[in-house]
């Protein structure tokens, strides 16, 4: 296979990445994330209506009359299905949901509540905290693992690549106001694992080549390593994306957000393994001595 000069574009892509990260951070700070009931608290109801021609505005109107705080109504997959979310959650009134169902039936005819999620403010705060801790913990665990297996320069490169993937994925979710719920946290953690996996494969090859070629500069050495592992990188990305795409398209509405986050993460992860992790090694002037020293220790 022809050798592709990935390293010629290190600078351009690094600048692009930095810009994208800054834009994402800007979005996260000023636009914020669209938290679902898991993290914000409140009530979510998945409704199936009898007629496929029931108007979304009609549903919205009847919910607005119930004094439930901020109500959002969205259609959900099928023409007959809707997701309704509102702030209020009432733990002390066992008839709360039943009453809503009654009122709704009165105004738009028979409805089926396919799913109800009701999360109190204390629980949602806890879920958010444990989600953030989980992501932080996984990043720390990866940092540690790579540190043990490689030198610190590699560890830093891998972790920066991970940050890049996580921040960009969340940035896109912020940009399009996509909902962040528990399954997105699971997706982000899996992205962390996948992106690491990709980076490790290239790093392993870099280390091997460092031992083999003493006189090749790290700038070219990373390029050789990327090329040698390139077909694997592409094939694995394709098979993973095939699997994720089939979840996204056929796995039902509930898994849409999860699979979308994963698809984005796999694309960013593949990119960052090449264009973030490797330039960091160049920047940190990794050479044969870096790993020889490691072996002496």
């Amino acid at each position: 296979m022809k050798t592709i000069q990935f390293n010629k574009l290190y600078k351009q892509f690094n600048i692009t990445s930095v810009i994208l990260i800054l834009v994402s951070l800007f979005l996260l700070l000023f636009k914020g994330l669209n938290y679902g009931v898991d993290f914000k608290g409140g009530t979510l109801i998945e409704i199936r209506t009898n007629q496929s021609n029931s108007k979304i505005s009609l549903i919205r109107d009847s919910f607005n009359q119930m004094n439930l705080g901020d109500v959002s109504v969205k259609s959900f997959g099928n023409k007959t299905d809707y997701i309704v979310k509102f702030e209020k959650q009432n733990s002390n009134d066992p008839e709360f949901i039943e009453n809503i169902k009654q009122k709704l039936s009165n105004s738009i005819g028979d409805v089926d509540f396919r799913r109800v999620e009701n999360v109190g403010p204390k629980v949602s705060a806890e879920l958010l905290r444990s989600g953030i801790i989980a992501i932080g913990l996984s990043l720390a665990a990866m940092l540690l693992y790579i540190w043990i297996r490689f030198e610190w320069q590699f560890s830093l490169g891998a972790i920066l690549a991970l940050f890049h993937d996580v921040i960009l994925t969340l940035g896109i979710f912020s940009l399009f106001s996509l909902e962040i719920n528990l399954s997105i946290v699971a997706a982000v953690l899996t992205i962390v694992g996948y992106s690491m996996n990709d980076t490790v494969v290239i790093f392993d090859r870099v280390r091997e080549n460092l031992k083999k070629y003493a006189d090749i500069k790290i700038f070219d050495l990373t390029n050789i390593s990327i090329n040698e592992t390139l077909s694997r990188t592409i094939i694995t990305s394709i098979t993973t994306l095939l699997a994720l795409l089939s979840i996204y398209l056929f796995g039902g509405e509930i898994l849409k957000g999860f699979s979308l986050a994963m698809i984005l993460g796999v694309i960013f992860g593949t990119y960052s393994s090449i264009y973030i992790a490797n330039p960091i090694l160049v920047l940190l002037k990794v050479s044969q001595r870096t790993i020889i020293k490691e072996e002496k220790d």
Partner: protein
Amino acid sequence: MLYFSKLRVISVLIFTLVISYFALSNFLKFDDDYFAKNIKLGLDLQGGSYLLLEIDNSPVIIQKLQNKLSSLKKFFKEKNIRSTNFKIIDDRKISFVVDETTSDEVLSLLNSKESEINPYFQRFKTHEFDVEETKVWSSSNITLQFSDYGLVLLKNSSLDQAIEIVRRRVDEVGTNEPNILKRGNDRILVELPGLDDPARIKTLLGKTANLTFRFVTQSTEESFGTEKLKFEDGSEEAIVSKRIILSGDNLVDAKPSMDTQSNQTVVNFTLDRVGSKKFGKATSNGVGKRLAIILDGTIISAPNVVEPIIGGSGQISGDFTFQSATDLALLLRSGALPAPLNIIEERTVGPDLGQDSIEAGIFSLIIGFVLVVLFMIYKYRIFGVIANLALISNLFLLLGILTLFEATLTLPGIAGIILTVGMAVDANVLIFERIKEEVKNEKNYIIAFDSGYTKSRTTILDANITTLIAAFILFFMGSGPIKGFSVTLGIGILTTLFSVYFIARLFTAFFVIKNKNKENLI
């Protein structure tokens, strides 16, 4: 790397077949009880309700403080120590005043390790109460509040009681295989598979069911020892005495029934021996008075006592429907909760949505699987077939292990299986790509394949361990459906490694040794 002993081949084969048998037992009926295991479906797939309840312990704390206050008073009286001004501050502290001259003695009585009134827990090196002293003029103000461990002890005991009551109430309703678990020291998790309308259970769990019988007083104003309470329908109010004639603790049974005279639904109850005696005595003295039957601070009814009730059984009338009488009887039979429960999280999935999710999940699994299989054959031809054989056995192993451990399969769990399909081929891809490189320099296929396997090994391990770490963290931090995802993802990695190194390698070795003299093998 390409050599396999016969023993190894056989054990790999047997292991794979046994595990696959478990996988198949989910779809086929086998005629044996021992291996009849099934994957459990999570609530999101089979439909059902998930409720997280939190105990509001503040009434229990106040109750315990009041008890402690009385015993402190008694204790100091017995010891002949003058103590005054007992009160409860902020619903969390007991405070009282003693003379400065006796304060040292009081403190030593409270803080000694042998203290009768403030027990010391050797294991946790703490008393039940923390004691503080502030000197004011010639007297000492002493405050007691629960120590951290004292509070934990209290919470644990009220949680244990509550969980027992919750279990009884849920069992009485008769849902199939409910799951009731402790969470922390003030929460109870209730999982109710197959229940798509939890309203009734929520109503039952939302009631403390504290039943008392108390006399209605003649006065029209609230005074010391009485309180004003509302009737259940909210129409009337009555002043009732605080003195409890009889409480729900003395009930041994309660049943709904039809009163033949009034043609109304009532609840019949039976009392234990102590209860019958108390009730008999009180009703004998109180003929002509109204006896209020009070549940959780509201009056159900307040009938006139016509004659003494001495048989140890009685009747609660009220504005009941048959359903509400049944529920009241159930609550009385199962006993009172030590403290109110709040539902702080509820997730309910209807059975048809669960079924839809299963269908969508399986359909996308099949599509994903077919796409990956076709892509591997396109890319690697015969070795693609070998990788696919590994992938198929991987799926069987994964399902089999999930069945063996009776793990819970959730919708995200199915996503984890599909993701495993996509990522599992990675290990074989790494190996095949490495072999391709080796073949360029090494004409002997057997040596080339051998070193391909050897050289890719650490990379494959590193790459899989990272994903395993992520799955591990998810398992410990995640809840419910997400936990299901981490389980399939994590086990998927282990079965992937097994299928690549034992199954795919076996086929590869077999094929290479047979065709070692052919050109362009890979």
